[in-house]
């Protein structure tokens, strides 16, 4: 089809491609500058605020921050906080998505619309009353309280995603299970969840990654330093030593970011880019 076209068009196409390449590379370069600072400074013991190639690259910054106090405790706190909250979110979302995807009733549509509506609410705005409420009921500065709130805040989106995934599973399979006398729980556990595997993985990873990066919620709800997750401790670290040790700050930022970056790579491998998530958001 293309070869049958006149030659000049082809060259125009090439020209256009080169122009697009140039424009994209310019944008990519601009976006890459802060990332370059992150990588180069982490290898530079005398890092400043500017991007520069380290005189003698070393891993000293990493060994300086790899201590209990700076890295291991906060990362472990993050893992416990976000891990438990994710488990709760995914379990509740999988349970809730099943009837919403399978049964029709007068209230399932309003319920779904409410869920979708709360997906969009700015959670930041709820944080002041949540703080006040947590003080009243003595949940302030508790990891489980914070985890419960984190779980609830991510739940609407998780339900929505999970329901969309479940909608894609043919009903024939569970009808067979029902005829064999399986209960809804057995059907969900033995038939639906294994089939929704990729969907559950995506929801789990996505929820975990969002929580891992969340700063405002633990920043407000957790107070004692030994309970702070990495997202908040990095802030105290920066406030206290950052002005002197930019290299260490960069090294710690890399350590803290690596898990989420890896997880995103994992989902995008599974779904061919973040496009599926974009599609899920679109409805």
């Amino acid at each position, binding site marked *: 089809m293309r070869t049958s076209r006149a030659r000049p068009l082809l060259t125009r196409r090439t020209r256009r491609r080169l122009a697009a390449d140039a424009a994209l590379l310019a944008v990519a370069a601009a976006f890459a500058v802060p990332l370059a600072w992150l990588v180069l400074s982490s290898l530079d013991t005398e890092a400043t605020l500017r991007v520069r190639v380290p005189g003698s690259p070393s891993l000293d910054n990493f060994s300086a921050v790899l201590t209990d106090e700076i890295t291991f405790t906060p990362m472990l706190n993050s893992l416990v906080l976000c891990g438990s909250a994710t488990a709760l979110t995914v379990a509740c979302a999988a*349970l809730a998505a099943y009837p919403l995807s399978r049964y029709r009733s007068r209230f399932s549509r309003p319920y779904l619309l409410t869920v979708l509506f709360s997906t969009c609410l700015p959670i930041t705005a709820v944080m002041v*009353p949540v703080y006040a409420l947590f003080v009243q009921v003595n949940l302030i500065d508790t990891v489980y309280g914070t985890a419960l709130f984190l779980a609830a805040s991510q739940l609407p989106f998780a339900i929505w995603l999970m329901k969309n995934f479940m909608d894609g599973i043919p009903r024939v399979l569970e009808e067979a299970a029902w005829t064999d006398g399986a209960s809804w729980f057995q059907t969900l556990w033995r038939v639906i969840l294994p089939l929704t595997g990729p969907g559950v993985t995506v929801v789990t990873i996505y929820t975990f990654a969002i929580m891992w990066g969340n700063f405002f919620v633990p920043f407000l709800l957790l107070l004692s330093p030994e309970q702070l997750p990495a997202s908040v401790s990095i802030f105290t670290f920066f406030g206290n030593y950052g002005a002197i040790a930019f290299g260490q700050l960069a090294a710690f930022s890399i350590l803290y970011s690596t898990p989420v970056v890896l997880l995103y790579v994992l989902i995008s491998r599974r779904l061919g880019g973040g496009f599926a998530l974009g599609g899920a958001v679109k409805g």
Partner: protein
Amino acid sequence: MSRAAPTTTAYGTAGRGARPRRTALLRWSPLAPATVLLLLFLAGPIGYCVYIAFTDMQLTGQESASFVGLDNFRHAFGDPAFLNAVVLTLVFTLISSILGQNTLGLALAALMRRASRPVRTVTGAVVLTAWVLPEIVAGFLLYTFFERRGTLNAILDWLHLPSQNWLFTLPILAVSFANVWRGTAFSMLIYSAALSEIPQEVAESAEVDGASGRQRLWHVTLPMIRRSIGTNLMLNTLQTLSVFGLIWAMTRGGPGSRSQTLPVFMYDQAFLKSLIGYGTAVALLLLVVGALFSVVYLRLLREEV
């Protein structure tokens, strides 16, 4: 059990007659944990938010809060600091979400369809990395970029252009660009998906008819992806309205209050000035704006379904 159960049962008995009440109840019981969690930790705080927005609750040194009616709101609309925050939030949203993320995301998605594969992969990876990094890390990175002794000024010096103390002279612009850096990938993903759904023939026939690039964009491409534009603008704006960590890490709302958007203002009033009631009133306004956007978004989706 969820509040919804009786409705279902009624429906079940009326609709199918023979179906026992218990089955319907059992069927919907998996909804219970999620509903309880959402009611306790999401609906609860929102309800509480509405309540304390009308009280003079403070963080410390107060026996009990008393009902003050609309005082907090009246106070807000006469408070220059609040109006400043509203204006800054509008500027921040306009620059970073509507002009920045949205336009740049569309441009990137469109260019990527023409570009060669390696360039597309590299650009995609860089832009997505900026999106994936935790908010606080992004805040630090952009802080070092815009700081007086930071990279941006180094580049400007190198180009023999006048340097600026960006975080001091134009803090709202700096944080807006930071938000563009962080959020463009999302728009890019949405628009990539939307553009790939435009049938090839449509674009080609327009080209054969001699439509210029700009004409094709305006008369063919944009009308065909208008739903995605709506969705994207809505979600971007909602996300931008609640940005806190990024601004807090870069400027803490300063210098003075020159990058104090509504979430930062809310935090400042509620926790640094201990005026929980007033801070919540501001939060409620933010929530209402967010809710309005959500409703519009739902309308858009409903049209699509």
